[in-house]
């Protein structure tokens, strides 16, 4: 008996995961990638894609073993009521914290680039309210909205990149592969951390119309993300070169600012901001939903909705108070976020995986003993 009654299709799941990773990845990561790997930043994208694919397959193979249950439920089953709840609490809290980060970075994008005179807290409250409304209506509702918004955002981004093509200079990519492997790996570690955010899908697998299809979600998601990031990083490098990209805080936004279509169409960055309000709002909604649902199940509630509104207070305050300025936001994202996400999300999935294997082995041995007893 699960809390969520809504069901989502495979395509909705693919779009939801892709959007939830891409929305802030495309916003923040390019400048950090070029900082680590210079003009070879684009190489980090497929490397991270391979890691993402492997981790996605691993995580999903854990999920499909318990088709009717989400990660909190089987963590309690496998690790016992206390340790299981502790792991689930860490999981839920990480999504709360990451969500606060997303809200904060999006708020500071709007303040620095679009509306410098409005206080930051206004944007944070507004985006959290949008997300809270979506979460209150349930998984099915915001998944369906996402099914419209995500393809739209991809189409707009592609159109903007296409408009930038005439100004691009692909000599910026040379010299190829001049950075050592550790630099590349550090850059792809950052992207990989975004991929691990897809662990929120482990809370949603039971809500799939056919949970056994969860495995088929991984390939399309990795493909969408890799292609989108390759296009984004590639066009940024070709348009600005890696040194200028590194100096920017939100390079993709600058890209939209720079392109124009003859004398007809220019300064289309407001369109981009509009699209981003949608995609980031949906990302916040997805993480919001997952961590509220996880908290509700940790406390054995019958419904997650009572927690939605109080959670909004916590989310807004954390997003305001946890980071002091843009420099600290960037530092946190480039260094501490990858380590935290990898340790907590990767660690909890691996722990559950290992426990599952041991438990199955143990139960098999018990069965064997019983068989032996019956035979003698």
């Amino acid at each position, binding site marked *: 008996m699960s809390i969520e009654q809504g069901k989502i299709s495979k395509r909705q799941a693919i779009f939801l995961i892709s959007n939830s990773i891409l929305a802030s990845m495309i916003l923040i990561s390019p400048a950090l990638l070029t900082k680590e790997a210079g003009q070879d930043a684009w190489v980090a994208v497929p490397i991270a894609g391979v890691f993402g694919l492997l981790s996605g397959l691993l995580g999903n193979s854990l999920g499909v073993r318990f088709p009717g249950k989400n990660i909190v439920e089987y963590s309690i089953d496998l690790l016992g009521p206390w340790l299981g709840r502790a792991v689930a609490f860490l999981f839920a*809290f990480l999504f709360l*914290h990451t969500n606060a980060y997303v809200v904060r970075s999006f708020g500071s994008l709007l303040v620095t680039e679009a509306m410098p005179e409005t206080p930051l807290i206004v944007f944070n409250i507004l985006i959290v309210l949008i997300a809270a409304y979506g979460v209150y209506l349930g998984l099915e509702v915001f998944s369906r909205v996402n099914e419209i918004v995500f393809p739209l955002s991809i189409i707009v981004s592609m159109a903007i990149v296409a408009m930038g093509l005439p100004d691009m200079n692909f000599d910026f990519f040379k010299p190829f592969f001049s950075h050592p492997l550790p630099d590349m790996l*550090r850059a792809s*570690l950052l992207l990989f951390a975004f991929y691990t955010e897809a662990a929120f899908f482990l809370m949603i697998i039971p809500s799939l119309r056919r949970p056994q299809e969860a495995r088929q979600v991984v390939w399309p998601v990795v493909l969408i993300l890799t292609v989108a990031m390759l296009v984004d990083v590639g066009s940024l490098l070709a348009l600005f070169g890696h040194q200028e990209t590194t100096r920017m805080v939100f390079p993709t936004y600058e890209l939209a600012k720079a392109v124009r279509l003859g004398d007809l169409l220019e300064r289309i960055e407001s369109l981009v901001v509009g699209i981003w309000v949608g995609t980031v709002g949906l990302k916040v909604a997805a993480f919001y939903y997952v961590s509220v649902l996880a*908290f*509700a199940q940790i*406390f*054995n*509630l*019958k*419904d997650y909705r*009572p*927690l939605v*509104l*109080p*959670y*909004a*207070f*916590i989310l*807004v*305050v*954390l997003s*305001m*108070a*946890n*980071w002091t300025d843009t420099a600290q936001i960037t530092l*946190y994202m480039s*260094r*501490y976020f990858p*380590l*935290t996400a990898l*340790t907590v999300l990767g660690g909890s999935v691996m722990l559950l995986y290992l426990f599952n294997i041991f438990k199955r082995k143990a139960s098999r041995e018990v069965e064997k003993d019983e068989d032996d007893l019956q035979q003698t």
Partner: protein
Amino acid sequence: MVLSVLLLGMGTAYYEAPRLLQKQMKRELIAFSAFLLIGMALALALALDWPIPNPTRTIEFIFRPLERVIYPQ
């Protein structure tokens, strides 16, 4: 600021609590109240410029040694 926080909190309680009471969902009511109290406390602390527990600091403290190893200074 303080007043608006209090009003928002009361509004939330007024919106959510009667339904929970009506349906006799005791557990949910307790969890809701606990979350709302934490949220209100944090929001009041933000409004009054009091120190707020900062998980980011904790994370940075825990991972600093590892960060030193991975990233060049």
